[in-house]
């Protein structure tokens, strides 16, 4: 072959991605800071548009909410979203632009409604054979916007909890939602969609596109959905093949853009956090934690796929099964790492076919709780909760009541943080244990033994952490798994949100303790290392037994 090696391409690709994200960190982070903290100004264009929206939905923008009021708004909004999306799918056949598809049957419609509202985008259907243009663009895509906005809004509330002093007012959900959708997600998606169209992604209203060799392939508003599906770390593909489909992701540079889109908001939100708490170093520390874990993980995935234990991979020089030849190892590995690290779940290669250790790292990425950098908003609040736990464990070692950003971490805070930390492991482990104990469920596994276990672990990790990607071989479309995974998605999304909002409420009530030389420093490399350590050790301790019997056993055979 000659030319450039996989190692060098991988390194260059990752370096280019890091550079692109680093360049966006400050401007995007600062911009998002302005959007979520702006005072209500009257005469500007944006002010007038916002006021129109508030009048239409009957919201007084200056009325700030208590954490519980905010939580009720989030839950009410999400409940209505589920119901509307469910009904939308049920009546599809009677609406225009249905591409001839009938309404979805109740179980599937319910699963899909929950999946898109929880920012999971677990897809038990195939886009091109179940969903028409109308529902894709005005049902699913709308949830792609608002579910992402909910995540960012909740993260902003937690950050406000740290920044505010002796108050129970944490902002207004409807204002936050409106602003995040209008001024962050819409403009970036708009530009991204146009660039994607330029890169060859489909964007039309014709039902079918005929290609040269007499094939008919569904067309539709693909580019616009592709943009927000990744920007909002949703991941639900227009096509079943997701970003491996040439109409969604035609070239290596659209591939690069897509990976950039799914990483850019989660990696820039720490800057917004630093701005709101008036200490950019704190934001930098958090983004460093995310960056360190993400880099290690990406390097491991690409590395394992390159080494590719097994006869065929050894012969061809890398584990290419399940990967697009036009992308190769580095582009596929980076995409796979990014999509599992960010709770996106879109794929450009099939994770089931990854080497046992490579697939194991993807599994571990989700088990980390989607914090490096995690889903939009969800990653930031997840990592801040981990930082709180780290501060508590290690903070005592400096001889003071642990405090983070001047707020004391007392019994109530640690109770909420611990419960947060319990939710996803509990859902994942109980889900897997209960499923594997029922013999009929074992048919869902494509393979027996450790790989089959990995498939099931992956499904529950994906649902509980709202990722949405799947180990392709796993046949999840059974009543048991639709129900179990649906419950995991619901509880995995909303229980943490309620706990995070409660934590924000409890933090905002406090008067901050001024920092002194005796204060535990949370902006230095030592702290970054500690959060990385706590994140990895706590997750490893929780999941090691099942991982040992899944990917580790398979890999060490």
């Amino acid at each position, binding site marked *: 072959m000659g030319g450039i090696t996989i190692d060098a391409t991988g390194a260059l690709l990752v370096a280019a991605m890091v550079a692109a994200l680093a360049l966006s960190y400050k401007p995007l982070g600062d911009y998002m800071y302005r959007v979520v903290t702006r005072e209500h100004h009257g005469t500007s264009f944006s002010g007038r548009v916002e006021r129109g929206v508030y009048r239409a939905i009957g919201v007084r923008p200056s009325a700030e909410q208590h954490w519980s009021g905010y939580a009720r708004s989030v839950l009410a909004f999400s409940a209505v979203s589920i119901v509307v999306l469910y009904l939308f799918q049920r009546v599809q056949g009677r609406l225009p632009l249905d591409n001839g598809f009938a309404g979805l049957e109740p179980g599937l419609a319910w699963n899909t409604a929950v999946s898109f509202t929880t920012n999971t985008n677990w897809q038990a259907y195939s886009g091109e054979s179940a969903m028409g243009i109308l529902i894709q663009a005005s049902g699913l895509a709308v949830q792609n916007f608002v579910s992402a906005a909910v995540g960012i809004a909740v993260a902003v509330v937690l950050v406000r909890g740290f920044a505010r002093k002796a108050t129970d007012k944490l902002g207004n959900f409807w204002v936050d939602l409106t602003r995040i959708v209008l001024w962050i997600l819409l403009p970036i998606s708009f530009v991204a969609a146009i660039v994607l169209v330029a890169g060859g992604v489909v964007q039309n209203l014709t039902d079918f596109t005929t290609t040269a060799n007499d094939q008919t392939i569904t067309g539709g508003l693909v580019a616009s959905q592709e943009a927000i599906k990744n920007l909002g770390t949703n991941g639900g593909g227009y096509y079943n093949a997701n970003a491996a489909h040439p109409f969604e992701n035609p070239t290596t540079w659209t591939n690069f853009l897509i990976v950039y889109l799914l990483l850019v908001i989660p990696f820039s939100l720490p800057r917004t956090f630093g701005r709101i708490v008036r200490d950019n170093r704190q934001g930098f520390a958090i983004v460093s934690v995310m960056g360190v874990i993400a880099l290690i993980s990406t390097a491991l995935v690409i590395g394992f796929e390159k080494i590719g234990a097994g006869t065929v991979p050894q012969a061809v020089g890398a584990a290419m099964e399940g990967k697009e030849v036009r992308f190769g190892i580095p582009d596929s590995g980076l995409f796979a790492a990014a999509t599992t690290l960010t709770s996106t779940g879109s794929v450009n290669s099939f994770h089931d076919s990854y080497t046992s250790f490579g697939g194991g790292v993807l599994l571990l990425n989700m088990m980390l709780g989607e914090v490096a950098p995690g889903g939009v908003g969800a990653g930031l609040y997840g990592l801040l909760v981990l930082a709180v736990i780290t501060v*508590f*464990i290690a903070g*005592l070692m400096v*001889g*003071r009541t642990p405090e983070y950003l001047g707020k004391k971490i007392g019994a109530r805070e640690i109770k909420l943080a611990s419960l947060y930390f319990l939710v996803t492991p509990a859902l994942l482990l109980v889900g897997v244990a209960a499923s594997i104990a029922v013999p009929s469920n*074992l048919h869902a596994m494509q393979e027996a033994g450790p790989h089959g276990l990995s498939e099931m672990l992956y499904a529950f990790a994906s649902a509980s952490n709202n990722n949405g990607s799947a180990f392709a071989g796993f046949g999840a479309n059974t009543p048991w798994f639709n129900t179990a995974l649906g419950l995991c998605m619901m509880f995995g999304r909303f229980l943490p949100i309620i706990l995070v909002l409660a934590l924000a409420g409890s933090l905002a009530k406090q008067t901050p303790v001024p920092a*002194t030389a005796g204060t535990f420093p949370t902006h230095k490399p*030592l702290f970054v290392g500690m959060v990385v350590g706590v994140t990895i050790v706590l997750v490893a301790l929780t999941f090691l037994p*099942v991982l040992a019997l899944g990917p580790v056993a398979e890999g060490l055979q």
Partner: protein
Amino acid sequence: MASPTARNGLLDPKQWVKSTPAAFRKLDPRVMWRNPVMFIVEIGAAFTTVLAAVDPSVFAWTITVWLWLTVLFANAAEAIAEGRGKAQADSLRKAKTDTVARKLADQDPRIESPRAATIEVPAPELKRGDYVLVEAGQTIPGDGDVVTGIASVDESAITGESAPVIRESGGDRCAVMGGTKVLSDWIVVEITAEPGKSFLDRMIALVEGSERRKTPNEIALNILLAAMTIIFVLAVVTMQPVAIFSKDYMAAAPNTAVLNQDGVTGIVLISLLVCLIPTTIGALLSAIGIAGMDRLVQRNVLAMSGRAVEAAGDVDTLLLDKTGTVTYGNRRASAFLAVPGIAGSHLADAAQLSSLADETPEGRSIVVYAKEGYGLRERDTGELAHAEWIEFAAQTRMSGVDLAEHGSVHRIRKGAAAAVIEWVKTQDGDPDPRVDELVDQVSREGGTPLVVAEHRDGESARVLGVIYLKDVVKDGMAERFSRLRAMGIRTVMVTGDNPRTAKAIAAEAGVDDFLAEAKPEDKMALIKREQESGRMVAMTGDGTNDAPALAAADVGVAMNTGTSAAKEAGNMVDLDSDPTKLIEIVAIGKQLLMTRGALTTFSIANDIAKYFAIIPAIFAVIYPGLDALNIMRLASPESAIVSAVVFNAIIIIALVPLALKGVAYKPGSASSLLRRNLLVYGLGGIITPFIGIKLIDLVVALIPGMA
């Protein structure tokens, strides 16, 4: 009052023996329940006992015995910590002999002599507000304030200090404690404590730990430990169906004592769970708390609650009274500044003469300085036959002497500048204006100026010069304050001095700030201000007018010599009445928190090695590849599991001395403390069990049925 074993901080094997009965008593589930982590271990131990009885083997019984030992070690650690307090409580109880009180018959404390009519009442029946008469040789029946009389009191039963103290009505030295003894004279005491709630009762309860409540940080830590326990219960319980599934897949793998077709055996599951849940910190948590209180008691400080000790670690601002804390209680003469035209020796002579009868420390220091600086022999007051000594009076603000010499009178006066200058003027003198400069200079430098003047019959009075009285800052204070600063603690000196003097002393002592011309309400305002900006404040105080500030401060240390109002208001009492101790109290509070954090980190870090011991031990039978995780190369699955369990139990004993003594604490910035502790307890916590488990395995492998 500290027990011998507690004092040297080492663990005596006798203590383990002595605590054994208590360790067994604490196995009662109703007691264990309060410690969820160890409660789980106890349930596990009970369960393995049943399993071992049903299906006995060396392996099963070894695990069972060590699980019970784990629980017993935890209980013994707590019992040892409590035992040290009990020894102290016993010595205190001796002071609480039942005395008979002599209650005044007509309940009017204004009596002239101790021959007033009294009724004999048993001490425990005294109520608040009763007046009792106590004479020399009698024991004071209860806590109260002296309302009539003055007496010397032996408080050694409570403070351990053998020198008697003076207690008198009025002022800040009126509080007396039940159980102390009047040595001379007689007093009338108004009882201020309800029966059974005296200082002595509270002290006994405190050192015994019978009133121990969990502190805020302890509660938070318990929540985290409980959450981690739940996670590990989940991890272990959910492992079972997965293990069964894996065993089915590799059905050809042999059934062993560790894993069979029904999954992982109960004994192994429980062993894994016990190894993973944070037993080390769970076992030692309450011992750490009790030992923290105990360390204070050893320094003669009584904390009214564990919460106060913990708060001491969080203190951001220390309010320190200048006198007694920053400086020695009294000023000393450090220079004689003569007015131009007056010989230094003349001034020294006058200064000495005027101070001969002055028994205050300041007066003595002037005589001493005249001797050291000017070679003036100290004259005896008896030598000066015709001298008339003028004592200091608040109205004149002067003292001095009138010497009758050859028929004429030589008057010497020393005192506050304004008063002496006024005196000179009234004696037809014209005070040298340059004396004002000297007075200013002394004040500017933080000293107290005393002006000396003389007047001979027939001459006009004149000012001789100024005595420079200096506040002497205690040795090493500047260094202590800079260490506090490194710890992030701000020191504020509180003084009644004028701002200029205060500033000079503050600069010399190296405190961060000062509050001059402070009145009690200024102190209160300062505390409120600090607290409003989120800081925690510690202070000491003894007077009744300190009481509100002591109550408002997060850590209020009342001096034992102080009033009962002050002692009631504060949350700590220093029996030695040493205000400098505040600094030690802060260190003890920090050490308490650090010990908890260090052992928590250690406990969690230990889990990594235990996984490497147990996971391959269980599953290498079905997936031989997993033997690669057995990096310690442990002899057999059984010996690996036993070694992990034994290590888990032994580490509790090994850490008991650390829990009782507290981790080494050197004042420093949070960053430096963190780096050090993280290295020792984090990294050490990862590495130690690898070595420990391997060593134990080498021994365990020799037991038949294990290899």
